[in-house]
């Protein structure tokens, strides 16, 4: 197992190098160059002052050869120097670290809500296949696949504001400072996103459980007189849940980037809002740092899922 984890960690390196190269190249294909883009701002008009331009290019290291730029960027990353935000001059890494807890909390709440909806929905749908309750469950889940997150968010705003005349607390409160205000600010985004995610997970639960329920050992268990409830929960679900773990793990990691829209709608100062702001301000050091963080989270999640897999299923042993 340790050897496996070590090998997986080693495989990490080329992908990480690839991701860093991709980000590096992305930031170099900005029309003109990053410095011009930053100076002319979001409108993309006018021409920047040549002296300022030269200074900024020097600051961002754009005057050096590309290879040198890349290696010094990567070298600095390792030393914790992720560059400085163009907008306010603060270190990018520090900005990301302060914003991360909110996004992480939102993603976790979303995931818990999604699981609470998806597991019962998927199981009921599978054990009562092709009955009205299955159709209802499938309609609910296809609704989640169909509606874009920002529309669900907008509808939620609509219902809360118009029907209940309720506005979420305006100023953002940290979890440990004022948990109740914090909860009221996050729950709606988490509900909207959780429902959408539940659709994906419920479909997966349904289809894997259906497959498992058709296997011989399930028939044997039922034939020897075990109650259906026991067979489903203790025999079938254990096997059916494995592929679901993959989906849930990947979605969870993806959520850290997927909360962008909910953060925007509910005005939450997380990584998503930070990304949008950085894009509007053409704050490329921040954009590049954020994309890297998202990628690292997803890669780590992949690794964790594989390890979890081996732990959950004794048949899987990584030699």
């Amino acid at each position: 197992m340790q050897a496996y984890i070590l090998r997986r960690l080693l495989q990490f390196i080329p992908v990480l190098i690839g991701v860093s190269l991709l980000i590096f190249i992305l930031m170099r294909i900005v029309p003109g160059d990053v410095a011009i883009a930053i100076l002319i701002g979001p409108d993309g008009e006018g021409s920047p002052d040549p002296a300022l331009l030269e200074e900024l290019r020097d600051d961002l290291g754009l005057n050096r050869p590309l290879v040198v730029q890349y290696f010094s960027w990567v070298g600095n990353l390792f030393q914790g120097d992720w560059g400085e935000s163009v907008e306010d001059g603060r270190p990018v890494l520090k900005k990301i670290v302060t914003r991360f807890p909110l996004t992480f909390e939102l993603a976790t709440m979303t995931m818990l809500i999604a699981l609470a909806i998806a597991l019962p929905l998927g199981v009921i749908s599978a054990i009562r296949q092709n009955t009205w309750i299955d159709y209802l469950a499938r309609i609910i889940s296809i609704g989640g696949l169909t509606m874009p997150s920002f529309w669900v968010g907008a509808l939620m705003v609509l219902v809360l504001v118009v029907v209940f005349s309720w506005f979420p607390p305006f100023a953002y409160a940290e979890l440990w400072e004022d948990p109740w205000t914090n909860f009221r600010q996050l729950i709606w985004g988490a509900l909207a996103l959780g429902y959408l995610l539940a659709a994906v997970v419920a479909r997966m639960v349904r289809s894997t459980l259906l497959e498992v329920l058709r296997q011989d050992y399930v028939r044997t268990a039922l034939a020897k007189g075990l109650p259906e409830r026991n067979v489903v929960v203790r025999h079938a679900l254990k096997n059916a849940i494995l592929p679901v773990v993959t989906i849930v793990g990947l979605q969870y990691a993806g959520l850290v980037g997927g909360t962008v829209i909910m953060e925007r709608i509910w005005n939450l100062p997380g990584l998503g809002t930070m990304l949008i702001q950085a894009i509007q301000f053409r704050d490329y050091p921040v954009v590049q740092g954020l994309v890297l963080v998202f990628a690292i989270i997803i890669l780590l999640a992949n690794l964790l899922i594989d390890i979890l897999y081996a732990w959950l299923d004794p048949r899987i042993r990584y030699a």
Partner: protein
Amino acid sequence: MTIADMSRYSHIGLGALQGAWTRVWLFSRTQPMGGIGLVLVFFVFFVAIFGPLLAPKDPLAIDGNNLFHSPEWYKGFYLGTDHLGRDNLSRIMIGARSSITIAVISVVAGTIVGFMIGLVGGFYGSWSDAILQRLVEILIAIPTLVLALAIVSVLGPSQRNVIIAIALIQVPNTARVVRSVVLSTRVMEFVTASRAVGASNLRIMFRHVAPQTFAPLMIVFTAFLGLAIIIEASLSFLGLGTPPPQPAWGAMLAGKTLDNVERAPWNAIFPGVALSITVFGFNLLGDGLRDSLDPRLRR
């Protein structure tokens, strides 16, 4: 039922066109949900193509006397007006065109590139496959919307750049699907047989292996059209899609609409309904195609 099964009934059709209609009919009979999806997709394409002719008003015309006018069909305000008094129905109809155009072009481009990568990588294996697989892994490591945002932020918000972003997101998914089919097909006996009679690599690849990938490719293609529409709308919702004042479904739901949701709730409803109907249609069609083309799911 599969396409192969359907072809048994092809004698019913007298000409090629009739044959096509028969297939559509048989598909809808065996996959009723898929049939509904097909109807919805047809409807959306119809509006996208003929929208400018059908729209009751100029979608860009600002009407200061009718800001946030509620929907009253007998006065000609079918779906109400937005914060500038522009007609929602017309804007949704014109918005359909840009939405569909962006989705179709980007998915076609992404499919072609992904198909080539998957085909070549899967067929030749070794280093070309290894490189392509790493490339796919790298692209998959970045969340979809974040990647799209990053690309659009670098290239600037415009329809062309949105297309590039969406196409790029689709490439790895398509490549993976095609590659897995190619890997299992290239070791089949008919491939060995054609090699034995002297067929070249290129011929085997395109004449014998490639057609095997078309069914799964069709499923991915349809399913991704729905996703492409959502990504496009998300980008325009965040202000990075089709630049204003051109109508786009995502942008119609953002900004002033959310700020004035109490005053004009219809603005937050109708563009979303249009979006959902479209995506719903593509999802149903994709599911129907999968069920009818995947032999394992045949009932």
